[in-house]
């Protein structure tokens, strides 16, 4: 009898214990999908925790979802199931898709002219104009900028010096000349080849933009919905020819289409002298250069010296944070407040030091140039926490981190350097990257290849436009 009573009591205790928290105020859940899985995810998780500590009524959960393509596919499926995250990291090539689906509430609409949301300042004018501009869709600020990058050159200064090169190469011609000068080092086995970088479509788009040219019609889709692929330009041909020359002279180690890992490894281990990658790799490349014991030099992305207008500028890369539509008003408010906090002066500066992505606010750059003791900004990867930076000017101490910001600052903002926006961007990337790959490896009739690819891409784009816009 006694035992039964004890059992019943225990059961009651368990039941009460399990249901008790529901009487208390449950924090509002904010699920955020991001693509990172390395130290950048750690930073984001930590930021989410810091926000949750600041606002106990909210709970931010960071979920790592594949890559930029997968995250969109998964979100689409989640959307069809009706169970989707509050905030999604949307990459540049998915902009048109994000707009066309109507699945997102634009930041500017949520803010609706207010100066702050739940105590978080908006201060839109503080955002670096080129960045704000890029993520403005139909005249409205759509997503909140977070990870913004641009390609830059990374040089092994010691190897260049060994070959007698004092000035860091700036143009394609400089690179070819440097490779010629480096050839003796290749011949004697000091290095494997002159250059190695990821063979990704992003660089092709950048190089076309640098030459003030569009990838699709209607001014890159910025003046109206794009309807045709326009690869048939001297700018695009020049990119293909540059790759062909680099490769056929044996200057370039090709490691496969779309692969980032091996080329980065080649540079980090001192097997090549010249490397090109996202500025987002500044942090990790600096660390591996220090570990391998060579001096790292960086410049803006090399450009075609023969382009009629010279260097026009570079496109932004990276992604922005978008708020799903159809959320309850208090959840939407919380999501917006989180994003404003997430991209505020301190966090944007901290994110920059942790990764190499450019700070999105002018005030962040100022902060980094006028650091005061005790200003914990730098993300320490092994300890996964914010630490003090022992300098009062971050950029003076780490000049390689400034390269990307300088490049964007000097960019002439027009519809070429804003980059293209169209529905089949992701699908097209792989196809024109394949074209350049084919030409680089095997040569052939470039004009015919471009014509065929243009026709294929235009057909896909027109199918997309019909399905999404009925046009």
């Amino acid at each position, binding site marked *: 009898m006694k035992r039964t009573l004890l059992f019943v009591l225990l059961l009651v205790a368990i039941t009460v214990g399990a249901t008790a928290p529901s009487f208390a105020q449950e924090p509002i859940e904010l699920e955020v999908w991001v693509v990172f899985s390395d130290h950048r995810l750690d930073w984001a998780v930590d930021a989410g925790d810091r926000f949750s500590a600041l606002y106990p009524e909210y709970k931010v959960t960071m979920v790592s979802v594949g890559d930029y393509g997968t995250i969109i*596919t998964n979100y689409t*499926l989640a959307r069809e199931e009706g169970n989707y995250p509050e905030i999604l990291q949307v990459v540049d090539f998915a902009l048109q898709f994000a707009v066309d689906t109507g699945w997102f509430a634009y930041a500017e609409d949520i803010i609706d002219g207010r100066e702050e949301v739940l105590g978080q300042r908006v201060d839109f004018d503080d955002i670096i104009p080129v960045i704000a501009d890029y993520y403005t869709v139909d005249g409205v600020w759509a997503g909140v900028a977070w990870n913004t990058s641009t390609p830059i050159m990374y040089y092994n200064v010691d190897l260049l010096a060994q070959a007698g090169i004092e000035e860091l190469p700036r143009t394609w011609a400089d690179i070819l000349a440097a490779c010629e000068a480096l050839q003796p080092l290749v011949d004697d086995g000091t290095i494997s080849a002159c250059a190695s970088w990821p063979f990704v479509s992003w660089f092709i788009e950048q190089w076309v933009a640098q030459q003030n040219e569009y990838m699709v019609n209607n001014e890159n889709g910025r003046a109206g919905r794009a309807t045709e692929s326009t690869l048939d330009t001297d700018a695009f041909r020049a990119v293909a020819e540059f790759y062909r020359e680099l490769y056929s002279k044996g200057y370039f180690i090709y490691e496969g289409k779309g692969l980032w890992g*091996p080329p980065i490894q080649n540079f980090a281990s001192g097997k090549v002298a010249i490397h090109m990658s996202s500025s987002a790799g500044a942090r990790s490349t600096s660390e591996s250069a220090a570990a391998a014991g060579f001096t790292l030099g960086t410049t803006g992305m090399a450009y075609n010296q023969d382009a009629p207008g010279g260097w026009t500028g570079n496109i932004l890369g990276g992604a922005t944070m978008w708020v799903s539509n159809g959320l309850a008003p208090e959840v939407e408010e919380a999501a917006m407040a989180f994003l404003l906090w997430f991209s505020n002066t301190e966090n944007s500066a901290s994110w920059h030091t942790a990764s190499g992505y450019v700070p999105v606010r002018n005030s962040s750059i100022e902060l980094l140039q006028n650091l005061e003791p005790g200003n914990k900004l730098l993300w320490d990867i092994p300890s996964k926490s914010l630490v003090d930076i022992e300098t009062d000017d971050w950029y003076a101490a780490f000049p390689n981190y400034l390269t990307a910001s300088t490049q964007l600052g000097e960019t002439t903002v027009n519809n070429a350097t804003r980059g293209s926006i169209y529905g089949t961007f992701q*699908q097209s990337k792989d196809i024109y990257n394949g074209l350049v790959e084919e030409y680089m*490896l095997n040569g052939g009739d470039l004009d015919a290849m471009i014509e065929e690819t243009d026709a294929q891409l235009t057909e896909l784009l027109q*199918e*997309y436009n*019909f399905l*999404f816009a009925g046009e």
Partner: protein
Amino acid sequence: MEEIAYIVHPLVVSLAGALLGALFFAYVRWQTQIGGLYTSIIVGAIAGVAGATLLTAPLAYCMFRSDQNSEDIIVGWIMVILGLMLTLNIGSTFLWRFFRGQRLLPRGDFTPGAFRGRFRFLYAGAVLSPTILVLIFFVYLPMFDTLRFSTFLARFGAPRTRFICVSNFSRMLGDLDYQSNIFLSFALAFGIIIIAMSLALLIATMLNQPIRGANLYRTLLIWPYAISPVVTGSIFGLMFGTESGIVNRVLDLLFDVKVPWLVTIPAAQFSVVLASVWNVIGFNILFYTAGLQTIPKDLLESASIDGASAWQRFARITFPLLSPFTFFLIVTNTIYAFFDTFGLIFVLTRGGPTESTFTAMYRVYVTGILASDIGKSTAQSLILFLIVVGITIFQFRVGQRRVQYGNY
């Protein structure tokens, strides 16, 4: 109501089916001399009409309309032939059963253990329902959706779709890229199957010898099969990298050469075959080892006493007796080579360089998942499905005659 103009009228399609069915059945009747000629012809004609309309009627014969191009009409006739193959096969089975006086449907097996009584179908249904529900929701409905989507222009997330008849299929007729993907899939599958099976047989034969630690070897050799193709791809990617791979490191030290394994042709194709073989060989060894243990020792001993050499014993006794295993492995390895190598290719080469390892399955993924182009992707997956089904049927037809399921 607007008159629909056809290039090939639906009646012509049905008549063609009827004619083909009747001719085929009459031919079989003439060959076998079983049953009545007129019955054969009539049943053949009915089956022929059913076959000709089976796949075309649900689409309202749209592929034969005057607004379609000639490729669509070719696809239409292919659909007629596919339908005929199915209905004539079923029709002939029933007809010969009828002629031979057999039951049309095999009698239910009411041996002990079967359900009995008035409510036996209810009981059976209740017990089977979980499985049937899973099959319906996870196999049949998605399959039906696949069929439906293959006739549409559709993308994930798009507010509208457009019915485009068989254009997703007919565009493949002129798509040289896609055809080379198919050809490549066959070539890779051929390489994988030949190497993985012969190597597995060799290793299994060696394992079957009474050697010390045979169990340990066996476990270690089967191990790779427990590793998923994606992980296999990662392992080989690390090993075969041009600059940082261990393989080139060794080659560089020994012979002063570096092979760009993953970025040149045919090295990339070779690497994919090698990785696939490594991945699947454990499975083959497992079955061959089991097979070898079923071969009676006395048979081999008596052959040995009669003076048969080791090779003769293998070629005349072991290999024929292993044929059920060989047959089974050919079928499973074919399916592996066509479908499962996707994960490995995705990690190892991403279909490159210049699409030289771009298999049909990889195409389905790129079109459907990367590009969200579900219409084209489902059509491609159906073609791939038909190819593998076709190969499997072919293997059964050819293989079964040579397979000896022994009572030894």
